[in-house]
């Protein structure tokens, strides 16, 4: 492959150019988000708009905190909810995945098919009744309204079942059972330590999903103090002069954790997100 000396054709150069131009279009919004976060509104509204960083980030942040007095708290709720959802999913999904991968039991295939079928249910159908259920339970404006319903996702169970059945030989769990290990002990002491790579991937996917969730909090969180970051950012869109600098600063803060995760683990993340689609 490397010793091909054939000249690169003009068509291919054109294709390289298109792909490169496309990459710029993909990245430009992120670039402007960070650049605008460091400029005052007057600078952003000038023609042409700034393309390099300014020094107004602190000013924008103060403006943001002025419009959203609970922004740090909102950020805290977003982290709290995302981490809680992630930890619960890792536990419940791996436990269920382990059961589906390693045990023989009656109705196993049918129960698994039911789980997979729930993935097909469009989320908007549950939007209205979920809001009602939450208000009957008295969970409105409470993080648990976002944590408990999403504590065990179907995608996670599928992913864990795939990984466990390919990574762990049944002899291993049989041996642990003969040695007197309890059923939960086999999961906790034998299976769990062996599936950390899959847990890492599922953790990333779950965290990102919860962090970005907008429709969920939109219907169950009404109190500004309890907002998650997406809701808080949306509240900036009020009437009057739009504070573009502050909006960009807030958006940049909301996107930053995701960018860090992506830079560190993009390959693993992409593989994890697509695994359901490819194998399923």
């Amino acid at each position, binding site marked *: 492959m490397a010793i091909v000396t054939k000249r690169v054709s003009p068509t291919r150069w054109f*294709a390289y150019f298109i*792909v490169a131009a496309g*990459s710029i*279009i*993909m990245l*430009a*919004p992120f670039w402007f*988000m960070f650049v*605008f976060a460091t400029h005052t509104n007057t600078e*952003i509204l*000038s*023609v*042409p*708009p700034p393309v390099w960083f300014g020094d107004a980030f602190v000013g924008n942040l103060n403006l943001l905190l002025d419009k959203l007095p609970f922004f740090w708290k909102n950020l805290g709720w977003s982290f709290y909810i995302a981490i809680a959802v992630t930890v619960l999913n890792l536990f*419940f999904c791996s*436990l*269920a995945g*382990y*059961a589906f991968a390693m*045990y023989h*039991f009656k109705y*196993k295939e049918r*129960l698994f098919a039911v*789980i997979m079928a*729930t993935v097909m249910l*469009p*989320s*908007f*159908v549950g*939007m*209205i*009744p*979920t809001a*009602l*259920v939450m208000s009957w339970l008295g969970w409105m404006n409470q993080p648990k309204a976002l944590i*408990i319903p999403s504590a065990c996702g*179907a995608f996670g*169970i599928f992913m864990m079942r795939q990984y466990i059945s390919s990574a762990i030989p049944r002899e291993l769990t049989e041996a642990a*059972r003969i040695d007197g290990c309890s*059923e*939960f002990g086999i*999961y906790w002491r034998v299976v769990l330590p062996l599936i950390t790579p899959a847990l890492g991937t599922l953790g990333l996917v779950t965290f*990102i999903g919860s*962090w*970005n969730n*907008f429709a969920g909090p939109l219907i169950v969180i009404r109190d500004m103090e309890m907002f998650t970051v997406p809701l808080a*950012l*949306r509240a900036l*869109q009020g009437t009057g002069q*739009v504070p573009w600098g502050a909006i*960009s600063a*807030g*958006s*940049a803060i*909301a*996107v930053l954790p995701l960018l860090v995760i992506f830079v560190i683990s*993009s390959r693993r993340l*992409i593989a994890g997100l*697509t695994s359901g*689609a490819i194998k399923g």
Partner: protein
Amino acid sequence: MEAPMSTSRSGAAAPAKSRRRLQPWEWAPYVFISPFFILFLCFGLFPLLFSVWLSFHSWDAATGLGGMVWVGIENYEFVLGDEWFHKSLFNTFWLAVASGLPQHLVAIPLAFFAHTYLAKYRNTVVGIYFLPFITSSVAIALVFNSLFSRDFGIVNLALTSIGNFEVAGIHPLAWLFPTSNIDWGQPQYTKPMIAFVVFWRYVGWNTVLYLSALQTIPNDLYEAATIDGASRRQQFWYITLPLLKPMMFLAVTMTIIGNLQLFEEPFIITGGTGGLDQAGKTAAMHMYNTAFVDSDFGTASAVAWVLFMLIALLTVVNNKVFSQKD
């Protein structure tokens, strides 16, 4: 331990079997999978069934459960005849096609290009295209709102500078690109703008799907075709595309299901209102507004189920179309 053993030995075969203690590995799996089913019953199935029940009632949530009045299929009749619902459906389909079709028309060649010609930088390039998919739709929609603003937006600046590009006193591109700033808030521009943002967000996801499918096509096929004298273009049309069909089916299905429930991007871009003349109001937004702005939960539930039926119908049609070609 001694007593039950002796009884089972002396007793008849059938009762002994029924009295046998259930072993831990027989009941444990049911316990292990129970969290999903408990959560699904409480927060999945029950709400759905209640929503079906609700869609046959007229109900203002403020009156409590006692205020529910059975109206039969009245809500459905109203929804099916409602002009605003028709308009939101039209918007939804417009957006689904205008953002969905280009996603696949770009993603397939891009994945092929990345697979065939990019070696060292493949992951970087694919990663760049994929990045929008994992970022917060709210943050992104807000940023796009500033990029698309009329007087200072970078999009207008780029488009008009191409439109006003001048060679020897003439503007060769003025017929295709605008020469003055576009007001993206006007109804005729709302949908194209939303469609672009949705396209931008999901094209990388589809590229990754197609790329992973391309990587499963054995290289021998291409080698054999090269020996037989097939050009790259012929290889693309006669080897790659047919073998991509299963993934195309899956990706198109996901785009249809996803695009018909489009909510977040148009909701943020139009500030929750649907924009001027409701040009950017999708069916899911119509459902949301009926429930949470007009407090008409019965009609909103009917909207949800009509939309659900449409999605199910289109999924079936898509299924038929893809299986027919064989």
